[in-house]
């Protein structure tokens, strides 16, 4: 067993104190799903979290712990919850223009070119066409897809499709980028590359990012803070700050603090029976 030799982080509350009001504020969020048998399943239980402007926060937890439910509520796709959720100080009731979402699957429209897919939100929201087109081209260049504007999704690799989805989520210049296991369907090598790219994109676009993942290493690599969730009912058990300087390269995996942080989260998720070796993929 590798002992976590890094300085233990200050015990922090769920609400991180900040000078400015948080961009995303979630208070006492609960969600109950009715089942087919008429029972009620408590998916989320009194979740509270704050995300500050420009922060990169990840939510990790086992499958079925309700982390996707949290994201879908923030994306405005689930409206019947209890508690308070606000983005940019405004209570969230349904989809918000302040939010851009990247799903686990790219969900591109196969009949639209890469450029037209990025422009889809601009069409829905009725943005100025010329301005949106110029911005879409910039975004495609930013995600490394210059020259692929006219390609159809069927002609792109899985990683490229997810890059298009990231550009699409940013076209209407939202304050928050929500990502729901965006690279879960990609192979491990592509996934590493995409994580490095995502860190760069987050830094360049200065967006506040909220990432849902079940990969602890991914969360630690990218985040300022990692929220650890447990299941049944879904609740946040601990908030782990990642005290590693940014920008981070893939070689940070060798840093003792990285390993210690990964191990700490792994123990929280698995209990003391956890293997001492942090896996790269999870």
């Amino acid at each position, binding site marked *: 067993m590798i002992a976590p030799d890094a300085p233990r982080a200050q015990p922090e509350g769920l609400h991180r104190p900040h000078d400015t009001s948080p961009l995303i504020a979630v208070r006492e969020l609960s969600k109950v799903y009715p089942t087919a048998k008429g029972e009620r399943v408590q998916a989320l239980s009194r979740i509270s979290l704050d995300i500050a402007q420009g922060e990169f926060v990840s939510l990790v937890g086992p499958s079925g712990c309700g982390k996707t439910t949290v994201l879908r509520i923030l*994306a*405005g*796709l689930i409206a019947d919850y209890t508690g308070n959720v606000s983005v940019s100080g405004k209570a969230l009731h*349904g*989809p*918000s*223009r302040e*939010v851009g*979402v990247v*799903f686990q*699957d*790219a*969900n*591109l*429209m*196969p*009949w639209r070119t890469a450029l037209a897919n990025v422009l*889809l*939100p601009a*069409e*829905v*929201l009725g943005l100025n066409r010329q301005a949106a087109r110029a911005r879409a081209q910039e975004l495609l260049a930013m995600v490394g897809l210059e020259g692929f504007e006219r390609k*159809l*999704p*069927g002609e792109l690799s899985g990683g490229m*499709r997810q890059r298009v989805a990231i550009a*699409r989520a940013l076209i*209407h210049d939202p304050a928050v980028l929500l990502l729901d296991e965006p690279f879960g369907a990609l192979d491990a090598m592509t996934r590493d590359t995409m994580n490095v790219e995502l860190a760069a994109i987050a830094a360049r676009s200065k967006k506040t990012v909220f990432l849902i993942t079940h990969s602890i290493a991914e969360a630690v690599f990218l985040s300022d803070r990692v929220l650890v969730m447990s299941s049944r009912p879904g609740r946040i058990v601990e908030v782990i700050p990642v005290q590693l300087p940014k920008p981070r390269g893939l070689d940070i995996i060798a840093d003792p603090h990285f390993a210690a942080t990964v191990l700490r989260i792994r123990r929280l998720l698995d209990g003391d029976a956890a293997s001492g070796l942090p896996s790269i993929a999870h």
Partner: protein
Amino acid sequence: MSPEARRRALGRQARLWFSRLWPPLGFGALVLGGWEAGARWGGLDPMILPAPGEIIEQLRAGFGSGIYQAHLGVTLLQAMFGFVIAILAGVGVGALISASPLVERTLNPFLIAFEAMPKIAMAPLVIVWFGYGIWSKVVLAAAIAFFPVLVSTILGLRACDPGRLDVLHSLGASRAQVFRLVRLPSALPFIFSGINVAVVFVLLGSIVGEFIGARAGLGTLILAANENLETARVFSILGLLAALGMLLHFGVTALRHRLLFWAGPQGGPPTA
């Protein structure tokens, strides 16, 4: 590519075509040859089975006099009108049904009853209602071709990938936007499978309508030739109808290729 390599590639292409084409071509030549021989020397009654040469002669005569073109035009026009109406009505009603559970519950029993009824049986009534002109045939063709389009539209709209819908819903898109930007294009591969059936059905409706009562059309020509025991002429018109049906089918395939450039050549929609 060097000239030598190009010649070899062309040779490969030709061999491939030949290996694909010789079975149907050989089979066709064998059947036609045997048929012609049987008619000439085998004592086949020309009123039952006229010789292929005689049928081709009838085709030449029919087109030479301009009669075939005129009647072909009428049948094609009726079929095309019926085709367009069937597609518009099928997609329209399908969209309404998939948009509103109330509309679905209201219409479902009637649609099932109407679908179960052989539409051809309505032909005499439709002639009484719409007369001997082209419109009775248009209505009959549209009524028969409506259902395959309707069913495939409903299936296609239901099969829409929920992930694609999430993208639109997370943007707060209106129902009209969701339909136009995601649901309808997603359903197109399904709708086209219905259209493929419909294009054959409109020809069927048109011809049956002409059998019951019409002033013009290939169906009336077949009836007239049959009454005069001009069997070769009947065969020539049947051949013409087969060619017309294939032409319409290729037309639909070409349209599918244009509209569904993003989908595979056949089958369901790809995921992306």
